[in-house]
C-alpha cells in the first residue's frame, strides 16, 4: 500500500481579486473623506455628556471664539457686527446650514450670547455648541 501525497500542487492564494477589493475600499474612502478645511483658533473646548454627532459634515459652518474674545469664521477673523450679513449670505446659498460654535471654555458667556443674537438675525437657527465627550456619556 502506497500513500501518495495528493496535494502536490503548490498552495497559492488567489491574488487576482485583491486589486478589485482595494479599489472598492478606495472608492469608499474617497467618497467618505471630507477634508478638514479650516484650521481655526486654538480653543479648549468644554466637555459634556449629552453630546451628539453632527452627521452632515458638509453643511457645517464653524465659528471659533477663543478665550481672548477673538472671533473667527471659516478661518477668517471677523467682528460681531459682520457676522449677521455674512451668515445671511451663507443661509441663502444653503438654508440647511448648521453653525458649530467652537468656543473656549474660559470665554465669557456674553460673547457667545452676542454671537447667538447675530445668528438669530441672520436666521441661522441650527446651532451646535462644540464639546468634547466626557467619560460615561453615550452616543
Amino acid at each position, binding site marked *: 500500500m502506497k500513500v501518495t501525497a495528493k496535494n502536490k500542487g503548490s498552495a497559492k492564494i488567489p491574488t487576482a481579486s*485583491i*486589486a478589485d477589493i*482595494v*479599489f472598492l*475600499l*478606495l472608492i469608499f*474612502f*474617497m467618497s*467618505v*473623506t*471630507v*477634508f*478638514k478645511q479650516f484650521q481655526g483658533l486654538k480653543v479648549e473646548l*468644554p466637555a*459634556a*455628556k*449629552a*453630546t*451628539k*454627532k*453632527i*452627521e452632515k*459634515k458638509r453643511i*457645517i459652518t464653524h465659528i471659533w*471664539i477663543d478665550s481672548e474674545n477673538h472671533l473667527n469664521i471659516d478661518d477668517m477673523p471677523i467682528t460681531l457686527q459682520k457676522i449677521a450679513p455674512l451668515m445671511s449670505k451663507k443661509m441663502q446659498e444653503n438654508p440647511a446650514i*448648521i453653525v*458649530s*460654535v467652537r*468656543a*473656549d*471654555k*474660559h*470665554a*465669557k*458667556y*456674553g460673547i*457667545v*450670547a*452676542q454671537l*447667538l*443674537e447675530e*445668528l*438669530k*438675525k441672520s*436666521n*441661522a*437657527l*441650527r*446651532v*451646535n*455648541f*462644540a*464639546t*468634547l*465627550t*466626557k467619560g460615561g456619556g453615550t452616543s
Partner: protein
Amino acid sequence: MALKLHGKQHINKDAEIPTASLADIVFLLLIFFLVTTSMNPDKGLGLTLPPPGKEVKLTKENVLSVYINSEGKILIGEEIITSDQIRERVEKRLNENPELVVSLVTDAKADYNSMVNALDEIKLAFKDLKKENPKFKEKISLATPVF
C-alpha cells in the same frame, strides 16, 4: 500587391496596457485616503434658536428658570445648587409638569464652561424623560443676558 500587404500586417499582435502596477497605485491612493480621513466627527450640543421677532408667550407656571451668575453659581427656584444637582431637579419638575420650558439664564460675565455644563445637565434630564416617553419634546431656551 494587395495580397502582399495583407501578409505583412502585424497589427494582430496584442496591444496591452501593463496592469501589474495598477494594484500598487491603487494601494498608495488607498493609504493616502486612509490617512487623511478624519474619523472623529464634529460633536456637540445641538440647539435650535427661536426665529427673530417671534415671541412665544409663556405662562409663569410653565417656565423653569435656571440662573447662572458671574461666579458660576447656579440657582433653581430659590435654591443655590451645584451643577450635578441640576439634572435631578429639572427631572423632578418636568415630571410634575411635562409642558415645562427650561430657560437657562446665564450672566454675560459667567464662563462659557459653566453654561455648557448646565446645558448638558438639562439635556441629560430631557434625555432620561425621553427614554420613558419617546414623544417627549425637549424645550430649552437660552435667555439673552443684558450687556
